[in-house]
């Protein structure tokens, strides 16, 4: 059966983040909370951020969704912790580009996240991967208002 193709999507790093998600839970000290859902499939994410002086001090997520959306949330929170908000938003844009199959800026150190490049070949799953990033972007935008 089509295991090779599946392996392109479900890379072991992704499965690792899915099975043992980082930053799972709700931040008590958060000053930004965002709920977002994917209306076509029912995936939901509850993201809590602690943003101080334009720095994302901490981030946690709760949610219900497939391996791709939950692994993406885990990786995203890992990446943005300690980053300033502008860099976090830039990372979200770079991630969108990556999902569209575009080359991304070399300066973007995505680490584990690069494992999600395979999602671009599964159009039906792109929205799963981008949901947590959209939530983060929205949260940061609302904080800076």
């Amino acid at each position, binding site marked *: 059966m089509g295991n090779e193709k599946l392996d392109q999507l479900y890379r072991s790093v992704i499965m690792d983040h899915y099975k043992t998600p980082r930053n799972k839970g709700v931040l008590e000290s958060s000053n930004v909370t965002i709920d977002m859902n994917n209306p076509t499939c*029912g995936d939901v994410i509850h993201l809590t951020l602690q943003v101080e002086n334009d720095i994302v001090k901490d981030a946690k997520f709760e949610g219900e969704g497939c391996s791709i959306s939950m692994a993406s949330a885990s990786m995203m929170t890992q990446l943005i912790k300690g980053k300033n908000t502008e860099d976090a938003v830039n990372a979200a844009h770079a991630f969108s580009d990556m999902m569209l199959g575009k080359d991304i800026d070399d300066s973007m150190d995505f680490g584990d996240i690069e494992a999600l490049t395979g999602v671009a070949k599964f159009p039906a*799953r792109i929205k799963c991967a981008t949901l947590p990033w959209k939530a983060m972007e929205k949260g940061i935008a609302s904080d800076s208002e």
Partner: protein
Amino acid sequence: MLNKDIRNDFPILDQEVNGYPLVYLDSAATSQKPRQVIEALSNYYQNDNANVHRGVHTLGNRATEGYEGARETVRKFLNASSTEEIVFTRGTTTALNLIAQSYGRANIGEGDEILITYMEHHSNIIPWQQLAKATGAVLKYIDLEEDGTLSLEKVSDAMTDRTKIVSIMYVSNVLGTMNPIKEITEIAHAHNAIMVVDAAQAAPHLKLDVQDLDCDFLAFSGHKLCGPTGIGALYGKKALLNEMEPVEFGGEMIDFVGLYDSSWKELPWKFEGGTPIIAGAIGMAAAIDYIESIGLDNIEKHEHELVAYAMEQMKTVEGLEIYGPRDSSKRAGIVTFNLDGVHPHDLATVLDMNGVAVRAGHHCCQPLMKWLDVSATARASFYLYNTKEDVDRLVEGLRMAKEYFQ
């Protein structure tokens, strides 16, 4: 079981998807189209295309005959007493919205009650929510039994003197449940409420008889019964349709147009503003002819056998939970399920990589997902062209997904 040669009528089934012969198990979303329907559409466009009800010319006559002939086909299909009771719409959604906007706005007031169930499709929920919000009416939900069936007792209990509209699906697109529409209609009428039937999932699989059901309105979509997308029909009792105002205004639906006022054509055309869905109606009529040539009784029986087989086989997969009635004879050709440890999207992707098409998500039934206490489910739905081998391929894929995600 139906003869496997039926598959030869459906050219689309003869292909490989991701390196495997296609197994299409998403007919509840939309069915595939037989050659007979595809040919009816191309024949119309190649030979008869013209606008209807206007031209004096020959093509105009042919198009009009095709379109109005399709109405007669739908009338017979539903056993309605007159073609005046058959309104062509874009599909079930448009038909239900028409009832809510036209009948609803005229007959529903503050404090009146509209009764639906937790298993409804969004298209049989939101039009009533909007109507309730606009009029101050109350939208009420009938609770389901534990196995996802609907009891007449709960229907009766939910009825009050204020109940004006009862709107219920005939067959659930998630649970596969077949609701006792005839009995519910009796209860509704005993309380002077009207009965609206969402037959989107029933029309492709069951013999319908609107006079026997005695429902007031019934809606279905062509694309789920082997017809093209963008066409469906609303059946309504003549006395009700006569009283109702159109919701779309423009060409085709008028009798006389003055500067400040206009009057409408008679039934059913007053509800069909603009150039109608001519090719769609002709294609849908070809689809009805097609499924009737196979026989709805035979189709229903075929699906029952497939569902019984599928449920039996799926039970052998560890950690698989099936929603809805356990008794396969109580359901239409739909099996909705979850596999422990594998999210339905992941499951659908794994199956797709093996050429098996299923649906994953909330199936346009968010209130039902909440009732089932799940965020999403996977669904396999069967139609006349599916076989036991298709079920085997599904079950094989489920085992593989289970292993892959271990």
